[in-house]
């Protein structure tokens, strides 16, 4: 008996110790989340915008058909939002969604499949004069149907492995069909959805306020009474706001130096979440300009880069960290490190790589001290440190590279004109998905700034997009990657961005993902005090 009493006492002690932790993990109701937003929403219509300046303050007002699991750190797992369940036909051409019942718009109207159809018709088949930024991502869709109030159906022209994840796009707010029928532009200047928070006010350049939606379909949520987004463009002012506890969080990201200063200043009052970021800086080389038309020269440029060493050091001063191929490390289609180390410019023996680079330059007739201009975007992080690093790396193989900084707003037009020899190219995705990330490397893509022509890449892209078996898709992607980064070196990846979110330790229920466009509905977020 005494033996059992001891065990019981031990169990009781463990249970008592666990109590406060359990209580702490139980979401607390109430409070206002305050967050800084470094940008502003140009309009209120998610279907036509592409800035996080819209997503961060506006997303909490809306629901989407599917969403990315708010607790999935890879940001690649779709779960139902307005869709309760779904089925996919055997041939992969018909997706049928069961729509939740009892979902109410903020004006009291009930949401039906008709609203889903109207919203997706606006995204995929916009009438003339209506801008839809992601229309091309749904090129496979033949029709959107709403056979009854609780069923939405998508019919595809060809099977597409990325389709389900594409429907979890955070931009695809579901609007009210009646309003769209009256004025398809109404949502550009107004807010009215089915999301966890109702719109209160937007004072341009100052703040955005939302309050709890008591009729939200997910009973018990949201936990917060409301939120307030503060528009603060200066990064030092954002850091000061978090340091002074005037803002709980900024959802885009801070630099390593900002993180360190916040941790030093606030100690246990600050929590830090970090993740690989679905953004990458690449070097585009103009294939129609000499000597970059020669793949030996392009290969030499990538061979000069010591990515592994840079990963260790640049991550201390810039928002970059992982060495990566064409997909974000840690996500389903990312290149395994052993595979990556076989690619040109990724091999651990940098001396051997640089010796090969010098030999290739010599073979291509590029003299020692050859000079060219590298154009970079006038944004400090991480463009500036990556630009300095690239120039230093190329100097190691005898190239004399000058940097020309182009103002941010003039940069994209410059890339489109092809007015460069080598230039920094950039990409940020809202979901890590090969279809979305690699479309820019197709011969006819508007974003093929280096103007390469490669039918093999086009073919491999299409094959991976239509591969329904993930393992088969991975194999095709590895072949595509080898051709793109090693054999032809149409483009070179530098380092993967690294997202750092230092936030008030009071903020719970929010999980970092590789995209700063994801996980902003705030229904799962709560404050400890």
């Amino acid at each position: 008996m005494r033996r059992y009493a001891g065990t019981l006492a031990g169990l009781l002690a463990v249970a008592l110790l666990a109590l406060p932790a359990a209580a702490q993990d139980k979401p607390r109701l109430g409070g206002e989340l305050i967050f800084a937003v470094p940008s502003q929403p140009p309009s209120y219509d998610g279907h036509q915008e592409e800035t996080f300046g819209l997503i961060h303050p506006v997303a909490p007002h809306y629901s989407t058909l599917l969403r990315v699991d708010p607790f999935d750190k890879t940001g690649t797992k779709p779960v139902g939002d307005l869709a309760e369940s779904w089925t996919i036909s055997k041939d992969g051409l018909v997706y049928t969604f069961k729509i939740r019942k009892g979902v109410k718009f903020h004006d009291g109207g009930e949401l039906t499949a008709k609203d889903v159809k109207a919203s997706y018709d606006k995204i995929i088949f916009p009438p003339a004069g209506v801008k839809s930024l992601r229309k091309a991502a749904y090129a496979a869709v033949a029709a959107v149907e709403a056979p009854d109030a609780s069923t939405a159906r998508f019919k595809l022209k060809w099977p597409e492995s990325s389709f389900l994840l594409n429907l979890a796009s955070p931009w695809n707010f579901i609007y009210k069909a009646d309003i769209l029928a009256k004025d398809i532009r109404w949502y550009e200047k107004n807010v009215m959805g089915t999301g966890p928070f109702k719109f209160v006010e937007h004072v341009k350049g100052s703040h955005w306020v939302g309050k709890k939606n008591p009729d939200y379909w997910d009973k018990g949520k949201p936990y917060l009474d409301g939120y307030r987004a503060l528009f603060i463009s200066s990064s030092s002012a954002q850091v000061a706001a978090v340091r002074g506890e005037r803002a709980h969080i900024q959802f885009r990201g801070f630099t390593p130096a900002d993180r360190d200063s916040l941790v030093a200043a606030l100690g246990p009052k600050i929590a830090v979440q970090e993740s690989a970021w679905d953004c990458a800086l690449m070097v585009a080389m103009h294939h129609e300009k000499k000597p970059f038309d020669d793949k030996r020269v392009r290969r030499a440029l990538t061979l000069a880069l010591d990515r592994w060493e840079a990963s260790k050091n640049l991550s201390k001063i810039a928002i970059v960290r992982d060495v990566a191929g064409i997909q974000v490390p840690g996500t389903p289609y990312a290149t395994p490190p052993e595979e990556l180390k076989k690619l040109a410019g990724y091999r651990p023996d940098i001396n051997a790589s640089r010796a090969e680079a010098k030999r290739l330059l010599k073979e291509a007739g590029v003299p020692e001290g050859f000079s060219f201009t590298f154009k970079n975007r006038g944004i400090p992080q991480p463009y500036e440190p990556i630009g300095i690093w690239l120039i230093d790396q190329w100097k190691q193989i005898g190239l004399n590279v000058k940097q020309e900084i182009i103002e941010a707003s003039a940069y994209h037009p410059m890339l489109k004109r092809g007015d460069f020899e080598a230039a920094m190219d950039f990409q940020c995705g809202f979901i890590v998905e090969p279809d979305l990330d690699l479309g820019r490397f197709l011969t006819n893509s508007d974003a093929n700034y280096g103007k390469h022509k490669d039918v093999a890449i086009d073919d491999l892209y299409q094959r991976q997009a239509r591969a329904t078996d993930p393992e088969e898709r991975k194999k095709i992607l590895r072949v595509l990657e080898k051709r793109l980064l090693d054999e032809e070196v149409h483009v070179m990846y530098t380092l993967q961005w690294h997202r750092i979110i230092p936030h008030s330790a009071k903020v719970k229920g929010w999980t970092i993902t590789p995209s700063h466009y994801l996980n902003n509905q705030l229904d799962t977020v709560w404050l400890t005090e």
Partner: protein
Amino acid sequence: MAIAQAPAPELELEVPRVRSRWAEVVRDFCRRRPLGAIGAAVIVLMIAVAVLAQVIAPYDPLGTNFGAMLSPPSAKHWLGTDTFGRDVLSRLIYGSRTALLVGFGASVLGATLGAILGVGSAYFAGRVDLYLQRLMDVFLSFPLIILALALVAILGNSIPNLIMAITVPMIPRCALVIRSSALSIREMPYVDAARAAGFGHTRIILRHMLPNVMAPYLIILTAFLGQAILLEASLSFLGLGVQEPIAAWGLMLRGAAVEFAESAPWMAIFPGLAISLAVFAFNLFGDSLRDALDPRLRTQ
């Protein structure tokens, strides 16, 4: 009788030391204007450092060394290193080349073009003077930095464009000062005589008027040098001047220097000191030169 021969006394002849006129002027300047002399000494030192940068800089100013990134000042790196492990002292030494190139380039060009316009305006008078001065007024209505910013935005940011962008706002300021001096020279009898002798306008302006406005020209030139260095640093700090990885003082103050101001203050302190010292030196020298050359301010 033996005549005692006394040794001839050695003649101590006072041989006057031959001093050049320049040495005399320098000595006089140092004695009368010690602050100006200090300014001049700093300028000379700065020029020497710029010329001998390759010899005296301990490291390659562009060479990165990640193993030594953000090192504080030490025996190995006297002024510490930056975020790329680049030696701050070496970058400061090479940065003096950029500062002097842009500073001298912009102020010589600005002051010379301003002087030509000012003298021309005063000489021709009438409508030419009226239109030129109104044009100068338009340029003068813009603050120096705003005009330079606009020009860099239009021309793009290379060193020649930067010199041009700093030169343009300096021209009207110089033209105004030189014109006021040239107006009195225009009324001098020798100018009338030259005109009566049938000399051309160009000859009268270049041979008879310009040499007589040299004093205000030199004063303006030295005053503008400090301003031009400051303007170059400001534009580079704003990301519109010299571009990385070129070493330039203003550039060393931006970006990472701000970000790491608390943990690595040496990245901002030393370039800041270099800019202040250079501008201070040029201002001291310019002020003293003005006092020395302006008869009204000359004190015995």
